């Protein structure tokens, strides 16, 4: 593995460290499920902790919809830019970077550094924009595997991810069964339900029907379809929270007044203000084409599809040990969906531990610091053997 030129300097107060984003251009073309081929695919990634002598301690973290390779730590020049899973991953944390070498990777099609719609299409010399080919979870996993090849990593101790990241972790065990010893699939599902696809479609329509979208070529017009992105984020955000949490946080509280203002256009309730704020924030940093691509990858993921809908048959290839975690109030990726994965693994006799964490926060719970959840992840990772004496997976 090429050694990242990374200083392990821990900042004092938060037990975190300085992360450094790196990029690597894949030496081989990436052939996509859609039939397209991408060349010179740039992968953005970060590495925390050191690989051990036989590289048996490498953990790959796959990201969900709006995240990136910046999984843990902060940047030297941006001390407030904390990695999205920093509460779980770091020195002394449940995924202990003093023991594991953790790699965060950004997926193809993203807007955070890996090859995506904002890059130039070599065929036209113009930005890909809306012409960027559709990518799937399987394509992402292929790209991640190619990155590991380039880094000289043969096998992962653990591949882990939440939500869409969990789908990638699951797919890893099917696409590269011999390269994964453990998979942590958190708040995820074996495919999306019709309702879930429906939410994605509403988000996509919001973006595509924004007059500034220009079929994805907004860059050429010098505009951004921010209105569409805002609406997309608002609907997404609603589905990531639970009804209880939203009621507890906002209830029917009014934004400014004690009395109703009898307005249909202005912000009246605090929840409206919150959603608009989230939408605005999101539309400032996220790319519309990326949003379309990533939600589509979610929709398409369905490993059982080529096995007549039988998930157990699809998962029969997996050789990894599994940790599956769901959260009781998650209705976007409900415990029932995780239990489907567990049942398929049980039917195959695959080693799996499954926990249903009683947390109030809905789908977002997988990103939050919950003592039971983190204790469980810590216990699981403590049991992952590394070093020359490790047994077979």
């Amino acid at each position, binding site marked *: 593995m090429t050694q990242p030129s990374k200083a392990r300097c821990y900042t004092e107060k938060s037990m975190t460290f300085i992360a450094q984003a790196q990029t690597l251009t894949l030496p081989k073309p990436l052939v996509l499920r859609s039939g397209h081929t991408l060349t010179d695919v740039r992968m953005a990634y970060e590495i925390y902790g050191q690989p051990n002598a036989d590289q048996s301690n490498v953990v790959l973290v796959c990201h969900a919809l709006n995240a990136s390779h910046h999984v843990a730590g902060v940047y030297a020049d941006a001390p407030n830019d904390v990695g999205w899973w920093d509460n779980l991953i770091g020195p002394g944390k449940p995924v202990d970077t003093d023991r594991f070498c953790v790699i965060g990777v950004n997926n193809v099609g993203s807007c955070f550094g890996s090859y995506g719609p904002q890059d130039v299409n070599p065929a036209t010399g113009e930005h890909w924009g809306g012409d960027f080919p559709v990518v799937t979870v399987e394509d992402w996993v292929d790209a991640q595997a190619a990155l590991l090849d380039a880094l000289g990593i043969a096998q992962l101790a653990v591949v882990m991810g939440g939500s869409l990241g969990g789908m990638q972790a699951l797919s890893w065990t099917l696409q590269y069964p011999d390269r994964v010893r453990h998979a942590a699939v958190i708040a995820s599902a074996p495919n999306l339900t019709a309702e879930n696809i429906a939410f994605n479609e509403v988000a996509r329509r919001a973006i595509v029907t924004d007059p500034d979208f220009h079929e994805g070529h907004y860059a050429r017009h010098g505009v951004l379809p921010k209105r569409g992105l805002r609406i997309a984020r608002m609907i997404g955000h609603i589905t990531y929270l639970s009804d209880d949490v939203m009621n507890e946080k906002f209830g029917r509280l009014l934004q400014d007044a004690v009395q109703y203002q009898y307005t249909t256009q202005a912000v009246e309730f605090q929840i409206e203000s919150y959603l608009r704020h989230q939408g605005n924030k999101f539309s400032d940093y996220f790319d519309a084409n990326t949003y379309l691509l990533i939600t589509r990858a979610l929709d398409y993921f369905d490993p059982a599809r080529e096995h007549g809908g039988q998930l157990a048959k699809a998962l029969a290839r997996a050789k990894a*040990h599994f*940790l599956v975690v769901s959260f009781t109030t998650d209705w976007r990726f409900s415990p029932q969906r995780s*239990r489907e994965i*567990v*049942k398929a693994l*049980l*039917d195959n*006799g695959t*080693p*799996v*531990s*499954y*926990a*249903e*964490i*009683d947390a109030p926060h809905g789908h977002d719970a997988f990103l939050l610091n919950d003592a*039971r959840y983190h*204790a*469980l992840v810590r*216990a*699981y990772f*403590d*049991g992952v053997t590394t070093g020359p004496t490790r047994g077979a997976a």
Partner: protein
Amino acid sequence: MSNLRTLHTLANLVPPGSRVLDLGCGDGAMLHHLIQTKGCTGYGVEIDDANVLACVKRGVSVVQLNLEQGLSTFADQSFDVVLQIDTLQHLRNAETMLRETARVGRMGIVTFPNFAHWPNRLRVLGGRMPVTKRLPYQWYDTPNIRVGTWADFEVLAEKNGLRVLDAFGMEEGEVIRRWPNLMASTAVFKFERPAA
């Protein structure tokens, strides 16, 4: 029920190399023992967060499920042995669970506190519900909502068409075969569902 002798006595009922499902597996001690000493494989099922964590800490595969919702997660005859060590008495649908156990496993091993143990009988004769080392709860706060006797289970097993392969009483991990319904605080049954 967690002392070492009890664990060994019950482990002796499990053939080496079995695929085991331990319903209500607690902290995973039994499964861990079977995996380590008898080459078994398998899963525990638990509802309690602390026990799930304890199992993961031991490296025992555990699935967090509510047994009251049945065993639909598990396929027919998918395990060699299904254990229900002191679990049945906590379940509202105890009979369904017994049938499910026989469906999922080729062999079932069930233990539960024997209500007909003589100190319990004395206590009831004295007009009070038993409170003993084995049944330490008051009647109003006991988690044991299905308290039966060694003899009762024989009847239930027969009613459900189960073939009892072995049955005995257990006292502090010692096997009691003489008058188990009277002399043992724990009932132990090993059974199978005869081929149709």
